[in-house]
């Protein structure tokens, strides 16, 4: 469905952020993109959704194809119309608009009459948004704003959603709830999901396939079941030792293991 082939992304003509990154997302999957800070995860999402341009970034090499069409030269509005919707990091709701107006803004590209029904559908997924429908979204809690950000994405009826750190700054219970809904959206609405997460354990528990990024490259890619068993991933991303027990920081003497992909 989506395939990124060897792309290079440069900001401000000099800063090389992605260095030959490739990845593939198949229809109906949830794919997780993991990596430490600054690995280039958000840049990857933005290069797909066309949001690099306002930040002076550009895909300078390689191709991005969606449903067989090249999209790396298209602008953001075109890409949304083709069915890719990015939920940006940090929720980014329109603070001075009400919940319902935010949802209507999400349906901007649509000209059909189903918008009302879809607002109801979003409320069915997130009943809390219905209670707050006429409230200014800027005054809602972080969890409610994240629900609104995902609901707003649903309003565009995308075939693919790019979720950038939906767990950021949320209480664990809320994170559970939101990830449950993300899985339901994937299953019931048939929306393919590319998920960027810092919380590797959580991401690997919901995704079908995972990519590990470091320094602007993919360093490992596999089905999540296999990734979870990989010794490096367990050590560096899940914080588990040889057994299934979490490692105590007291027992860590130094970095004995070297990540095998760095050499």
């Amino acid at each position, binding site marked *: 469905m989506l395939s990124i082939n060897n792309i290079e992304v440069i900001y401000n003509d000099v800063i090389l952020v992605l260095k030959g990154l490739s990845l593939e997302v198949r229809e109906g999957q949830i794919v997780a993109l993991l990596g430490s800070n600054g690995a280039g995860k958000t840049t990857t999402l933005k290069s797909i959704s066309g949001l690099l341009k306002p930040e002076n970034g550009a895909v300078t090499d390689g191709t991005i194809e969606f449903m067989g069409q090249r999209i790396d030269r298209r602008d953001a509005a075109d890409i949304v119309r083709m069915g890719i919707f*990015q939920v*940006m990091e940090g929720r*980014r709701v329109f*603070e001075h*608009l009400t919940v319902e*107006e935010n949802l209507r*803004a999400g349906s*901007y590209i649509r000209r059909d009459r189903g918008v009302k029904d879809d607002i109801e559908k979003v409320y069915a997924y997130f009943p809390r948004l219905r209670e707050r429908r006429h409230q200014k979204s800027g005054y809602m809690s972080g969890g409610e704003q994240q629900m609104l950000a995902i609901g707003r994405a649903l309003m565009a009826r995308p075939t693919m959603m790019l979720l950038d750190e939906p767990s950021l700054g949320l209480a664990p219970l809320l994170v559970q709830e939101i990830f449950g809904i993300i899985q339901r959206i994937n299953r019931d609405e048939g929306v393919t999901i590319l998920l960027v997460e810092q919380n590797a354990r959580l991401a690997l528990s919901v995704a079908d396939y995972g990519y590990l990024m470091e320094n602007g490259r993919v360093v490992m890619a596999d089905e999540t079941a296999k990734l979870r068993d990989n010794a490096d991933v367990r050590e560096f991303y899940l914080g588990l030792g040889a057994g299934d027990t979490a490692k105590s920081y007291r027992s860590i003497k130094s970095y004995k293991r070297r990540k095998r992909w760095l050499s």
Partner: protein
Amino acid sequence: MPNFLPLLITGLMNGAIYALVALGFVLIYKATDVINFAQGELLLVGVYVTFALVAETGFPLRPWPWPLAIAAALAVAVGLGVLIERLVLRPLIGEPIISVIMVTIGLSQLLRAIVAAFFGTSQRAFPPIFPSHVIELFGTRITADRLWALGIAGLLLLLLSLFFRFSTTGIAMRAAADDQQAALSMGISIKRVFAIAWSIAAVVATIGGLLVANNNGGINTSLGNIGLLVFPVVILGGLDSIPGAIIGGIIIGMIESFSAGYLNVKLGLEGLESVLPYVLLIIILMIRPYGLFGREIIERV
């Protein structure tokens, strides 16, 4: 209180006209963060285009009937808005906002010079748009054209408020004003929003200008100064608030009208009505620096 009703209607009418011009100003500020110093000149262009079509001798096919001439002037206003976005704003995307503001000052001088080149700077008689017979209303006598002006300005303000509140385009414009990148991520074209904001600003300025011209019975290039006169209105109402522009406009209109009618005579101070709005402005700024209805910065605690 003698003359209460005529003063009230004059105040409401002037206020509604200020509100119209201020609304364009607010719209551009909200959508693009630019303080548009050329607002008065957008008005000037619109009024003079209408004037040329209706009254200017030597123009082909003259004189045009009012509705047609006004429609043409509004079309020119829309075109001007789109043109400004294309030629002035788009090349400046990513430049500091202060550069764009400076450019609007340049734009204002340019438009004013173009108008002066075509029509000269002398006072011209502006033919009346509305009938000006006297109407008896609640025991006082008022000319009909004031009621017309009040009605049209009020209706337009109502329509624009509804547009921003309920239409998809209106919501998209407010969304873009809130968070441009997020708006972009849902397919809202920022360029289009800018063009629409400038076009609406030019259209409401034109209509406001026509109402003023009709009221004064004559026009000259200093009509563009209304662009500066609405500063107290927008700062009073809040630079980024649409209801604020409307209420601010009406407050300023009323203050002018009533102080001219009562205070000037009582206190013997000629011209007090032009000073009072600014006095109020200073007081308001001390109490509420972002204006009466200005957007508060939402901070979640």
